């Protein structure tokens, strides 16, 4: 009986957890989704752009007549990489060889012949769809296409009608990522962030374990006062320390160096506090056994405490890596050259004063988030695996 209820309960719990997980993942999902949109914002999608004439209003046609290089021209001012297809309604007088073209800001152009996409003999309205990929955009500045034009080599006879000229926006695109990655020395930013985060993370795992072990297991004068100091140092709002920290770094000549960003962060009070609390929950039997076997304190720390603290150390690792990877304020304050920028500092330039370029900003945010997610996925198995896998038996 009890078992059956248990199974039912487990189903319920699984369902609840899936729901909660789904809800908490929404922002991450929106972030990634926006980053692959060609056009739009966090909440808006744009699927098409009307260039000329309203679709479905066949009553307002464009009259095209005469001859010449550009017999019809419409202003676009668009980044053509965003679009999949150029679509329009077309009504010709029959047998006209016309070319559709795109012209960039410098006047360079690329043409395709309409006969490939439409039945030129038909004199009724017909829908024409030209894939943007068919235009040869290699020689053009695809980011700044100014006009869409119709050209004809031979004199065109009769009147032509054109209506509902629409550019279809690509559903999925990586151009935001491309734009972000070519906009600055992102390799350098990435490298800086990586070096800094790596040093800080490993430094914290080793140093904070040492400090926390002493606070959890040893008795020494001044212990509680010092521990309060550790907690106390996180209680002062960081905004107060900005100016003093800056002048300190300036006076010791560390402005614009890695030192300024790494050294002060090597023993985060948060991590010491967490590890100290965690070590407190560990049973003492194993340590005592090791000491009786003749191990010294360092061996106890590295052979017993650290392996037993894997769940907490995994959190310290994730937390520290994430913190130092995402940190913005101090790298921004303390560095002055492009070479020293970290990823968040480089990416913050994507926000302007009044308007936010969401698709690019989200691509930039995704680029920052991905390494953190990878680190999380690497560390996370230690959080649950922990003791249940049997370091402690009795």
């Amino acid at each position, binding site marked *: 009986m009890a078992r059956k209820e248990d199974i039912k309960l*487990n189903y319920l*719990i699984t369902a*609840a*957890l899936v729901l909660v*997980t789904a809800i*908490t*993942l929404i*922002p*991450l999902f*929106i972030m990634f989704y926006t980053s692959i949109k060609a*056009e*739009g*914002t966090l909440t808006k999608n*744009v699927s098409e752009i009307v260039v000329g004439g309203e679709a479905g209003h066949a009553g307002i046609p464009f009259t095209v007549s005469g001859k010449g290089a550009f017999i019809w021209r419409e202003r676009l001012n668009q980044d053509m990489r965003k679009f999949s297809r150029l679509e329009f309604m077309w009504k010709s007088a029959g047998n006209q060889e016309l070319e559709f073209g795109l012209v960039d800001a410098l006047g360079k152009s690329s043409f395709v012949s309409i006969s490939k996409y439409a039945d030129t003999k038909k004199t009724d309205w017909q829908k024409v769809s030209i894939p943007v990929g068919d235009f040869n955009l290699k020689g053009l500045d695809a980011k700044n296409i100014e006009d869409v034009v119709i050209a004809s080599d031979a004199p065109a006879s009769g009147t032509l009608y054109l209506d509902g000229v629409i550019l279809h926006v690509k559903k999925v695109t990586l151009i935001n990522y491309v734009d972000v990655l070519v906009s*600055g020395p992102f390799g350098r930013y990435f*490298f800086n962030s990586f070096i800094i985060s790596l040093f800080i993370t490993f430094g914290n795992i080793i140093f*904070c374990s*040492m400090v926390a072990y*002493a606070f959890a297991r040893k008795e020494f*004068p001044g212990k509680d006062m010092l521990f309060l*100091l*550790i*907690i*106390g140092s*996180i*209680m*002062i*709002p960081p*905004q107060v*320390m900005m*100016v*003093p920290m*800056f002048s300190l770094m300036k006076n010791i000549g560390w*402005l*614009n*160096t*890695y030192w300024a960003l790494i050294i002060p962060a*090597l*023993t985060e009070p*948060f991590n010491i506090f967490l590890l100290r609390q*965690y070590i407190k*929950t*560990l049973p003492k039997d194993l340590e005592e056994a090791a000491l009786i076997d003749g191990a010294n304190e360092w061996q106890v720390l590295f052979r017993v405490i650290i392996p037993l603290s894997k769940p907490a150390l995994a*959190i310290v690792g994730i937390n520290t890596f*994430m913190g130092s990877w995402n940190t*913005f*304020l101090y790298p921004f304050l303390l560095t*002055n*050259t492009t070479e020293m920028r970290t990823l968040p500092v480089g990416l913050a330039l994507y926000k*302007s*004063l009044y*308007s*936010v370029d969401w698709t690019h900003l989200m691509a930039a*945010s995704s680029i920052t*988030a991905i390494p953190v997610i990878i680190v999380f*996925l690497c560390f*996370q*198995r230690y959080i649950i695996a922990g*003791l*249940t896998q049997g370091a402690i038996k009795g």
Partner: protein
Amino acid sequence: MKRLAALLLLLLLSCGFNTCSGKEGKTALTFWQLSVKEDVMRSMIDEFEKENPDIKVDVQILAWDFGFDKIVTSIAAGNAPDLCELGSTWVPTFATGGVLADVTGGLNGVKDKYLFWEPVTYQGKLFGAPWLVGTRALFYNKDLFRKAGLNPDNPPKTWNDLLEYSRKIEALGGGVHGFGIYVGEPYTPWQLFLPFAWSDGAEVLSPDFNKSLINSPEFIETLSFYNSLKKYSIKDRQAQVNQAFAEGKVGMQISGEWNLMLIPQNNPGLDYGVAVVPKPYLNKGEPVSFAGGEVLVIFKQSKHPREAAKLMDFLIREDNIMKVVKSQKNVLPPTKESIKDPYFDEQPKQRVFFEQMLTAKPAPNHPNWQKVEEDLTRAIEQVVLLDVPPKAAVEKAGAKMDKVLAAKKTKTALSDKSVFAIFAVIIIIIGAAVYFWQKMMKALEFHGKKFHLKNTISAYIFISPWLIIFAVFGLFPLIHSMIISFSDYNIIESRFSFVGLANYINVLTDPNFHKALWHTIFFAAGTVPFTTVIALFCALLINRKVPFKQLYQAGLFLPVVTSVIVIASIFSYIYSPDGLLNILIDKLRIPAGGGSFLQLLHKPEPSWLLNTALALPCIMAMCVWSSFGYYTILFLAGLQSISSETYEASSIDGATWWGQFRYIILPQLKPIMLFIVVINSIRSFQVFPEVFAMTQGGPLGSTTTVVYYLYELGFHKFEMGAASAVGYIVFLFIMGFTLIQLKIFKFGESVG
């Protein structure tokens, strides 16, 4: 290959660990700017360096977030750049501080050709050069005009037109509004309102800056007009109104050039026009708009003022400014002749902005404008949001402004009365400290333990990494900031004088601080218990034998990875007038007639984040939501130290679920629980980025927390001394709170 890689790595590293500088006998100039994109700026600088081969320019683009704070911090540390971009409203503040170099001489030649000299002029001298300017014009939605039976080619010319058109468009219904009024943030409410007042001949301050003039009949008339306009308007923050206009839900808005780019991004099909702003009457007044802009300044700290001036002259050359204008399309040139540029013929909408700029006015260049604008915004918000009669609102705000304007003169040394007050406070603080010390020692007491020297030394070796780093990078800044907190320290002026406890007294007696403190306590009390309980509950669920554990673990944790601005934007959308929350309320409400308690659900007016009672709880809900997963993971880690044998033993003993939780899990989790409660409380007391991203302390200061208050005081009003004092008051407050928590958890006793 490996060697090469190692060498490269070494090279890269050595550059980062030593200050890398390539001096070749050239004058190295530093130039900080925010507005121009990197590639455009780089190409201009390359040209400059070609023209001036003896100068090397190091350009830094600052991010808008905290870019200003970086400039301020650098000035304070004597490390300011040579040439710098500055928002025009800051010039008087910096000029009075004496940090800007007088550039009058160099600019005489171009004075007649440029606009926008007023903001850079202070006491008859020029402290900067106009660079890029912007103004506000009227945007109107032609489709909505047609639907409302208005002529889409005839935008409103007078206030009456504006009111009438707004009424007609509002009457269309379906969530469509006539006009957009900005509230709920510090700057935009007055930037939209003042042009109306100016058009009517009203002023905020008297020409000599001695008195506020906002209780003039013209000012009250304008505010009354605003009051009647609000009935047909969406009331929201500027970004939200811009967004609503782009989506075709607002008939008219008065806003800046950036909309010309925002609209195509959101809704490329929108048929809209741009016109100059309406004036009070057809035959009276002028259509005055607000002019803001970016100027270039040279700091006195600069070692190369002459070269910096050369770069400034180069950058404000008409052709260079037009390069920026053409590539960014969201700024205007301050050069009068530029209207002839064919570019403006091609861009008729930008041309309207240019025409509007000829009659635009900047904010009054009072050095304490940052304080004056606060009262101005508050008066406007009171009328718009709280229906305070215009007359009452301006009277109150006027009195406050007069106080700010007079403040400069009455700043003297300590009076006898205050010395007495200082003594009282010192005694109270010492008393409190002794009390807490005793309490704490009792809570942490060791009962006659003996320390062995050898053990002590080894313990200190173990904690030495922290001890050394803290001694250098913790203690020094700590003492420095403590000294600042006892001084009158204006970080711009670098004026530094010891004032004893005056900062602490001023802060503790400031009603705004009391409010901020109350908001913070409310915030902590509301979020910490919720977060802890939800996190514990989720951790217990995940810790059972359920499938896909790692999936939930990752899912709950990952919101922490997402940046605050993404989360804040999503929640802003949820809380917006036609956002998810209101849609949900509409869905839940049973159609009229059905008697349900759900009918009591009201959609707040004007919207969630602009309701003074609901804004803070809204931010709290967001914080709980975005952080509980993180604490779940911490609990989960804590739960791992309970071995499965313990569980098995207890279930054999027939312990109930509750019994297991109460007597096995809870005691085991105590250390981790303590950690979570303490850390979460500290974070709640220091809440800042969420407020910064969501509401900037508004509406009407209802979401100003202590740290936000501190930030404004230190970095916008430049009273770093007072700001540091706030920091230490916050510190004492958190410390007291933490000690209570430690006591509740019986910290000193060995646990587990």
